């Protein structure tokens, strides 16, 4: 064929050659991947079989085992340390952390982790942060806090994990300040605060005084780590103009527990026009037994919107005899209210 176009025959032969090569290359890639996996697996097994008895003796404070671990080849050390570090993810026993730290120290892993922290490969930075975190090496808290601003999202997540594991109060301020940071994963932010428990409360209350924009987030955090000390502030937030703040404040009350003032506000909020606020107000009265007035008001909301009704029923269940009386009074009804009352009563035993 004349002109710039190749003839059909040569195109076909080119495509045939290309497809043969592609098929062979893909098959070779599968074979190579499987071979590499098999070799790595065998190596891991070999190292585990050879050194794990020694590592376990070292965990039991056997100084001879610790000394021998220090002499194992450098190329095997990460493989020996890895399962020990992984076991700390689920088992946070302080004694185990201390003994694992000693073993990891003997294996000279810390300098490797330190080097990895500055690696340009994001997964190395993430691995190093989590390793240092599970070991609770608190002199690396600053590195963990700095990594909250890492450009890679998985490293920032690892930094939150590390700070959660470390539970170093020195990082608390940084974590609370980042409560609204959208670049950090929301569940991890809350998990990191949960790890500190009520230690966060003071920071949260102080910051909320100057940051009224994010009151809903502070209320959400207080629902995790607030105590009775937060009640006056929460009571104030239940009067906020924004329904999401009011709802979050009542939700926090449900966890902190209401006092007389909180109960009064929650009962009043049961008549609020916003469904979420009514639902959370019903939740806030969970376990409130100091007055029978609350049960009467809650019972009226068993035929409210479903989220309100369910929470009202649960709160009634938690109120002991006063709540039970209201539920029994409605259990005979043939409608949804009756079914909800019967269902709630049937779960009383399970709840106990």
């Amino acid at each position, binding site marked *: 064929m004349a002109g710039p176009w190749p003839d*059909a*025959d040569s195109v*076909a*032969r080119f*495509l*045939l050659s290309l*497809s*043969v090569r*592609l*098929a062979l*290359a*893909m*098959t070779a*890639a*599968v*074979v190579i*991947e*499987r071979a590499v*996996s*098999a070799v790595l697996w065998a190596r891991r097994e070999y190292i585990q079989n050879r050194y794990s008895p020694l590592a376990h003796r070292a965990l039991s404070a056997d100084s001879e085992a610790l000394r021998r671990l220090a002499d194992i080849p450098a190329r095997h050390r990460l493989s020996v340390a890895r399962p020990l570090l*992984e076991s700390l*993810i*689920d088992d946070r026993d302080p004694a185990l952390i201390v003994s694992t730290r000693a073993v990891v120290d003997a294996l000279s892993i810390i300098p490797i982790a330190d080097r990895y922290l500055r690696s340009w490969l994001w*997964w190395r930075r*993430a*691995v190093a942060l*989590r390793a240092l975190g599970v070991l609770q090496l608190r002199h690396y808290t600053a590195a963990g806090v700095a990594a909250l601003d890492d450009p890679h999202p*998985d490293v920032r*997540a*690892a930094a939150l*994990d590390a700070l*959660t594991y470390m539970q170093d109060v020195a990082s608390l301020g940084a974590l609370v300040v980042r409560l609204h940071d959208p670049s950090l*994963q*929301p*569940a*991890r932010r*809350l*998990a990191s605060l*949960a*790890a500190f428990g009520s230690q966060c409360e003071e920071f949260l209350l102080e910051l909320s005084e100057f940051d009224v924009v994010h009151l809903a987030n502070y209320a959400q955090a207080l629902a*995790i780590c607030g105590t009775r000390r937060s009640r006056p502030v929460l009571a104030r937030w239940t009067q906020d103009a924004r329904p999401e703040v009011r709802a979050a404040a009542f939700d926090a009350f449900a966890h902190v527990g209401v006092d007389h003032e909180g109960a009064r506000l929650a009962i009043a909020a049961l008549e609020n026009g916003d469904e979420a606020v009514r639902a959370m107000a019903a939740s806030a009265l969970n376990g409130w037994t100091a007055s029978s007035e609350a049960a009467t008001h809650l019972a009226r909301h068993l035929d409210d919107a*479903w989220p309100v009704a369910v929470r009202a029923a649960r709160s009634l269940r938690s109120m002991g005899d006063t709540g039970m009386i209201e539920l029994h009074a409605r259990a005979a009804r043939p409608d*949804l209210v*009756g*079914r*909800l009352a*019967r*269902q*709630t009563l*049937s779960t009383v035993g*399970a709840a106990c």
Partner: protein
Amino acid sequence: MLTASATSALVAFSVTVIVYFALWSATQIAMSPIALLFLGRHRVRHRRHVRALAAHLVSPPLVSVIVPSYNEALTIVGSVRALLALDYTPREVIVVNDGSSDDTLAVLQEAFHLVSAAAAFAQPLKTAAVRGMYRSTSDPALIVLDKENGGSKSDAVNAGFNAAAGTLVLSIDADTLLEPDALSRAVIPFLEDASTVAVGGNIAISNGCSVEKGRITSVALPRSWLARFQIIEYMRAFLLFRLACAAGNGVVLISGAFGLFRREAVIAVGGYDRAAIGEDMDLTMRLQRHFRGRREPIRIAFDPYPLGWTQAPEDWRSLRSQRYRWRRGLLQVLWRHREVLGRPRFGVVGLAVIPYILVFEGLGPLLEITGYCVTAGAALLGLLNWQMLGIVTAVSVLFGAAVTMLSVLMSDVATHRYMGGRDLVLLIAIALLESCGYRQLNAWWGCVGTAQALRGPATWGVIKRRAFEEQ
């Protein structure tokens, strides 16, 4: 004159087919690195740390697992036992007995000591009437809803959504077997990203595997060639196209065999559509349209590690029935959501994913069967270049095999299944043999399914199930 016209038509058709094939090849090649990178990132993330996240939360989200069940007496007890042993808490399991005519409810009552309970829940989604609700005295996390048959799986799942107390709802098939950590893994995207509305999981085929007490205990290739072909089909579908879609946040199908949803999002779009044939794809598309249409952030995630195992049909009749249904479902979804096509407002879904599905999955079988007919006609008229036909056939088979081996590679990276030497030889054989009859048959079924779709609504068809212990 006639011969000249036929030759011109043949050349024009050949050029069309070659351009189509080149485009398809280009998309496969373009998808591969995207999918591989996505898989690589998943692999290097430390899964144990990631899964530990839920344990660190003061109140991890309650997950309601919905098991729609219609005449599943053979498999339901094993499935429910496995679900009750999932390693994630808090969770509840809601079995919806959709008016079964077999002993589904009776075997459940006997196995789990069910007692009648008040059925109190709001019904934001309309369903057939609920006859009763049962709770298990042996496991408080189990609820059984007994309802009138609603004529579709969608109706049963919607009833489960109504009854669900969880903020997250897992919808599975009654014959789906889940990995013990499936739920704790699937929950993670919801915890990591507040805009996540759904998570799909990689579904693998359980045929050939050993199953004990609702758990896969050893993985092997099945003896049936029909099931073997479906294994590589699933690998390609889940580990190439869907991974590439997930990498670009363009997932348009959360399989009905495993889909974890934010309950309020599903309620907002009206739940599963009872009239939809491909109800799972239809729901996913409605979620995409709902959120993208309002310019609200949406993420539909996909976990490349197998979360669930499902039975593939091993007889031709069941497979044909399934493929007809899939085809009708696909065309129905494409027609229903045609306004998404090419609209920048719907992002990658409108600009890339739906056009890809329309061109390569919608038109593919029609073009393929037309190609075979034209080839046969050309041979009869003596116009066929046999050497060229041989080359084109070889290119098609080899390129198809290359794509299949790529998905096998990705499956290896993700899960290390079928790793024996014999398995590898078999997988290569399957990749080559798939193009020698099975693919053509699928294309033919695709054409018949298209004709059925044009004729109007049809029934679901019946797929023969076996108890897992038989495998």
